[in-house]
């Protein structure tokens, strides 16, 4: 009769280091893949789009008012008086550079080319008393938005872009207004 041996038991073996490393590499790879293609649980992101930005880039669009277009319109129309460097001309037109009218609310700025501006106006600390006709009334919405964006973002100005929709809304609000604005009227607007 063979001698009685101890009960067999399971030995302990540490988890191999390479297995842990492999596990973390796989976990890391999975997270990178999720971050890149997962769309972060957004309800509007489906394959083959990887992220919300991807979906937005694929919307049908017209490219918006481009800077080149705005510049072309500016030099054709506005630059004749306001000068192509936006510094204005003494006795003819006030500057755009550093003008609080330009970098302020687009809502006011859109109205000036649409109906014109006459009477005393203070621009960058200087008093002007001239009359500007409704130079922009005949421009299509996107051209006007493009040129306003160009003015607001050139020569050191750093204001928000103007969209064709904003121009369209203001144009609809003004209706058939033919009277030029005065500085007081514009300042009274929100």
């Amino acid at each position: 009769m063979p001698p009685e041996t101890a009960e067999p038991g399971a030995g302990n073996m540490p988890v191999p280091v390479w297995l842990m490393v492999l596990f973390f590499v796989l976990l890391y790879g999975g997270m990178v893949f999720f971050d890149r293609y997962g769309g972060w649980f957004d309800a509007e992101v489906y394959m083959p789009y990887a992220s919300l930005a991807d979906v937005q880039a694929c919307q049908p669009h017209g490219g918006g008012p481009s800077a080149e277009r705005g510049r072309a319109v500016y030099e054709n129309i506005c630059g004749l008086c306001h000068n192509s460097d936006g510094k204005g001309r003494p006795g003819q037109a006030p500057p755009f550079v550093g003008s609080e009218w330009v970098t302020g609310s687009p809502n006011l700025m859109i109205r000036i080319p649409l109906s014109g501006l006459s009477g005393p106006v203070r621009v960058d600390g200087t008093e002007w008393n001239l009359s500007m006709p409704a130079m922009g009334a005949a421009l299509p919405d996107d051209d006007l938005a493009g040129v306003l964006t160009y003015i607001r973002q050139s020569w050191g100005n750093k204001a928000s872009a103007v969209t064709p929709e904003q121009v369209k809304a203001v144009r609809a609000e003004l209706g058939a207004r033919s009277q030029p604005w005065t500085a007081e009227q514009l300042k009274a607007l929100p």
Partner: protein
Amino acid sequence: MNYGPLLFLAAFFALAGSWFGFVLTPQAQIGQLQPTNMLGAPTLYPQARPGLARQGLGVYRANGCADCHTQQLRQRGTLCDVVLSDTGTNIPAVITALLKVKPGLSGPAARQWLSVLPRPVLQGLTPAEADAAVRVLNGAGAKATVSIVPVGPDLARGWGKRRTVARDFLFDYPVALGSQRIGPDLANVGARQPDAGWHLRHLYAPRLEVKVSAMPPHRFLFEKRKIERSPSPDAMVLPRDLAPPPGYEIVPKPEAGALVAYLLSLRADAPLFEAPLTVIPAPGAAGATNAPAASGATSTNAAPTKAPAK
């Protein structure tokens, strides 16, 4: 039970984890979906199916149609086309810009080429390439737009124009997605085959309409009855070998009518934010469709008259 609490916790976390992943997360993700505006149109999408079509979903389900037909389209990618819809006023500048973005076109040919608009300038670009080309063309005063073309094997088969998304099924309960394609995908069958008579004949005898169809005939959705006073206007017109004996007619039962109404209501081709798509109007036919591209084209038609005279 030495390990009672441990086993309980393990079971609890296993079930809670799957509930979290398969119920709670999808609910948080798409549980609040609402009908939304189609791209470029003030129309809400989706609209609830008509009542008869909703009954038809029951017939579709009862007859196991979803065992052989899916209602989900996949999409492998999205390509961008640049479509020129209007030249504006400065034709020479547009031609210069056109030659820049479209190599292989010469000056006189470009002028000729511009005579029929709108038409695609470039096809199969990435969004960034398309944006760059549009910027060049719009800088010259032309009106170019990026049009979106979903691509993939399912779409190449003509089964639809874009992938299906959760919003397409908002008013369906249960959603008959299906998982096997013994027959073709039906997500857009109402758009592909809008003829109710075709569907009825196809249900009665599939091979009358599709020579190689593997679909079993669904004649139990029809009844053969004696013509009483005058023949029914719904009676099926069948070839001689299938026609009923003289004095009898074959008419669809209400279930067949409901099923056909449901099939005709199946169309998931509306352009949505999450599944963008542009329907290109045929050359010279701007405004003939209600697609978003057409609305852009009609607004550009007014642009030359408003353009400055300078």
